[in-house]
């Protein structure tokens, strides 16, 4: 299956994402530069990687979300293309309007970098279906602006519609209602601050992240 990783100036998890995708699909993903105006044909799943795109200028993810390739992604996402954003990629997805809410400065004001326990709150989603009976996973987090915010109406709607996919067991950043990962209404676009792509090899300290990639790839 053909997949792609978008690379922005100062992305730094693009290679981790590529390794994860190759491990699960057996095929090297296309690495797509942010200035491209269109995805290569036949791409079924796209990852927006972590990092500090455009130096986090203005707001995290703000500049990247206005880049030519993201315009194309917005169109294709609305037609059902599967897209996941991790860390900075999640910030890009909210800035692009593909996911509701915004990521703000961590409540404790500190950069948080450690393994974090997460509860799977919707095990039927396209991003978690392969976890089976597993309800708790550990992924690393590494961010300064991961404090998820949305107004109460939006949060209620997310919860009611099963769009909250992961919650923090021990909220590291002040995120509303301990939310760690959400999807859009259609379920094809997903974003989270933690890094599943950094938990795919025993040398990472764990392989809990593999299930997420297997889930979405199998759903396509």
């Amino acid at each position, binding site marked *: 299956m053909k997949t792609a990783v978008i690379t922005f100036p100062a992305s730094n998890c693009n290679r981790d994402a590529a390794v994860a995708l190759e491990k699960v699909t057996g095929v090297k993903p296309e690495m797509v530069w942010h200035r491209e105006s269109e995805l290569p044909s036949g791409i079924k799943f796209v990852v927006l990687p972590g990092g500090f795109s455009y130096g986090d200028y*203005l707001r995290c993810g703000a500049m990247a979300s206005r880049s030519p390739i993201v315009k194309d992604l917005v169109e294709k996402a609305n037609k059902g293309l599967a897209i996941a954003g991790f860390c900075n990629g999640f910030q890009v997805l909210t800035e692009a309007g593909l996911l*509701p809410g*915004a990521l*703000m400065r*961590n409540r*404790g*004001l500190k950069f948080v970098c450690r393994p974090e326990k997460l509860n799977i709150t919707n095990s039927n989603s396209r991003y978690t279906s392969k976890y089976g009976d597993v309800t708790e996973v550990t992924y690393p987090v590494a961010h300064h602006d991961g*404090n998820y*915010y949305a107004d109460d109406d939006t949060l209620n709607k997310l919860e009611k519609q099963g769009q909250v996919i992961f919650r923090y067991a021990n909220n590291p950043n002040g995120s509303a209602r301990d939310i760690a990962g959400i999807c859009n209404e259609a379920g094809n676009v997903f974003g989270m601050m933690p890094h599943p792509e950094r938990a795919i090899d025993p040398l990472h300290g764990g392989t809990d992240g593999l299930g997420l990639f297997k889930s979405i790839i199998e759903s396509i």
Partner: protein
Amino acid sequence: MKAIIHVGLKPGVLDPQGRAISRSLNDLGFEEVAAARQGKVIELDLTGDDSTAAKARVTEMCEKLLANTVIESYRVEIED
């Protein structure tokens, strides 16, 4: 012309940086500081001389890029 844009967090949105600033001012003896909100100011140099049109254009810039209206509000001033 110049456009001065003030961008800040909406009322009700928690501002952890503002909270740290007010605490720090309290520690320095400025006990009268009850709260602080931190925002940013963006200045644009603009060509043209129609300030009404400029204000409309800058408002569009705020909506499209300069502010994230999920969490931020903005105020535009045009100076000749």
